[in-house]
């Protein structure tokens, strides 16, 4: 198989297991994003693919070749680091071309390839500068150039945009996306920014404490999180969670928290089986809808962000966030009616957090 395959990969540092039994297939041309909180093992996984960290157990294939015992430069990969890791004393040109030189490529050819890559990344005018004379965004571009020029089968990115400011990050994100579309090469990309994950990925892998929580399309990860961890990690503001039971009053389905009944609309039929069972309801802010017929909620705080407005509500003994347009005025302390979009909600097992149903 082309692409990358991890088979039963395990990793331990000094006897402490940090990654257990990872199985993952990355198809050729995929843009795979590894998402997860700090310390969950994203970098470790990436380093193992790159060959920078030996695996403790299991095997890694790249383009159908078992590379588990190979050196990084033999694996047909390239890597971009959060700290850029440019060679500070070399010019941009040398930074990009050094790997080729080491591989014994003749000079004119190196020159040509460096120029092509520079053209592509629009850094031709910077080629003779030192990294210290570049801005953060430019440095990141050079780092990408250094990876690009190797024309590897797989690109590995470790939080490449974290050191950039918000505006630049958004721009670079779009550039990366375009680059992927043009090159069609496999990319494994680490981030803990879920906007990046959602917009860039063709496949998202959510990690927590060294194990894979969900590996799916961005849409599914957002819409159909496999468990409560994924649901809470993906999405900002975070999903609202309340504990309670599903109840039915004629046609109307409620979620009873014990302190009030949240009305749910458009609930799928499968929910009937779950009535009466204690569980956790998850509802994203944009799926709370204002409706005078709904349960009465007290406005705690309204945060206008420009295009939207996030409203903190005290409802049914819980605190929840709803999203609304920027126009509507919310007065702190006033009351408003709320219903929940049952067609978009998620229900989780109270015990193990597994998803029971997605609306």
């Amino acid at each position, binding site marked *: 198989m082309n692409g990358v395959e991890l088979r039963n990969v395990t990793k331990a540092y000094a006897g402490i297991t940090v990654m257990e039994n990872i199985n993952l297939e990355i198809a050729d041309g995929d843009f795979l994003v590894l998402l997860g909180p700090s310390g969950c093992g994203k970098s470790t996984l990436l*380093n193992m693919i*790159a*060959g*920078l960290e030996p695996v403790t157990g299991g095997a890694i294939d790249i383009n159908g070749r078992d590379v588990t015992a190979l*050196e*990084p*430069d*033999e694996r047909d*990969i*390239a*890597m971009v*680091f*959060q*700290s850029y*890791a*440019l*060679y*500070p*004393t*070399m010019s941009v040109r040398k930074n990009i071309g*050094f*790997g080729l030189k*080491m*591989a014994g490529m003749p000079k004119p050819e190196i020159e040509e390839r460096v120029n092509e890559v520079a053209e592509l990344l629009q850094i031709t005018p910077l080629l003779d500068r030192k990294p210290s004379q570049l801005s953060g965004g430019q440095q990141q571009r050079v780092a990408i150039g*250094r990876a690009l020029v*190797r024309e590897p089968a797989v690109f590995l990115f470790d939080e490449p945009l974290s050191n950039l400011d918000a505006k630049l990050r958004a721009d670079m994100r779009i550039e990366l996306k375009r680059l992927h579309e043009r090159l069609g090469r496999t990319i494994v990309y680490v981030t803990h920014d879920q906007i990046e994950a959602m917009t860039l990925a063709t496949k998202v892998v959510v990690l927590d404490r060294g194990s894979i929580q969900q590996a799916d399309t961005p849409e599914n990860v957002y819409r159909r999180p496999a468990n409560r961890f994924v649901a809470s990690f993906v999405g900002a503001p975070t999903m609202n969670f309340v504990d309670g039971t599903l109840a039915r009053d004629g046609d109307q389905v409620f979620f009873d928290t014990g302190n009030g009944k949240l009305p749910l609309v458009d609930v799928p039929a499968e929910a009937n089986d779950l009535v009466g069972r204690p569980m956790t309801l998850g509802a994203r802010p944009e799926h709370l809808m204002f409706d005078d017929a709904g349960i009465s909620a007290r406005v*705690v705080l309204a945060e206008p962000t420009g295009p939207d407005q996030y409203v903190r509500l005290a409802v049914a003994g819980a605190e929840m966030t709803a999203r609304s347009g920027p126009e509507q005025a919310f007065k702190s302390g006033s009351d408003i009616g709320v219903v929940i979009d049952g067609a978009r909600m998620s229900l989780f097992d109270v015990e193990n957090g597994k998803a029971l149903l997605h609306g």
Partner: protein
Amino acid sequence: MAEPAPDVLQRSEDRKFTLKSGKKRWRPQWSAGMALIPAMTITIVCFYGFIIWTFVISLTRSRLLPVYKFTGFEQYVRLFANERWWTAMQNLAIHGFLFIGGCVVFGYFLAILIDRGVKAEGMFRTLFMLPLSMSFIVTGVIWQWVMNPGLGLQEAVRALGWTGFEFNWIVRPDRSIYTLAIAGIWQQVGLCMALFLAGLRNIDPNIWKASRVDGIPVWRVYLHIITPMMRTVFFTVFILMSAIVMKAFDLVVALTGGGPGFSSDLPARFVVDHILNRQELGLGAAGAFVLLCTVIAVISPYIYFELKKERGGRGH
């Protein structure tokens, strides 16, 4: 929210702790100036004052004791006509080059070896730094033994059967200056190793990862990437070691006594010998002044470097 605010949310009425009365207060900058007074006094009086004094004395025919009868630049004429002085200056260049170069090369090499992630790193590190605890006198005494052709290494190797073995530099006028470098490097290589090791440890580990992905052989990474990044460390080592070279006195006395003849003499010893033993204070002072001028010529690039670097950046 109706939650009652705890006390801390009310500003205390009693604000005297954070607000002093408006009158002019003692400024910390003034304290900073005051704190510099001792060091500044030492610098002006002891460093520069004494340099000037040395210069003044070099213009006199003082012998055992300072006398202020000026004879113009006669001492310099005598100094420059003195073959021993020129040998010493030439030796300074040779020794400086070999000693500093050796410390840098071997220190860096050892640091790299240790940095390759060896077990028992602490043991090697400590072993390499042990000679540092010895004085130059002790160093000289030990090496005088080891290098003595009749007692030391040469004899020992010959006793093992290699009768043709020769290691008699310490008694050869054309080689004895190299023995100073050997003993000096032995003593100081640990400090250099520690400095370099610390520098290597400060390198972003991602640089290593990047170079592995690029498939760069380890030696080339050190040569082309790491070494240029360690410029400040090299500079620190250079400064520390050149201070030692300029002051080299004890080691010469203990190791070769400047000999054979005066073939391994160094300016510091020349100066001290003339001031303290020869009762040629004026001549010694002239030598000292020339030596100090050499010092200033050597370290002024460093001074310039310091000033420039800090004007450029704005700290952290």
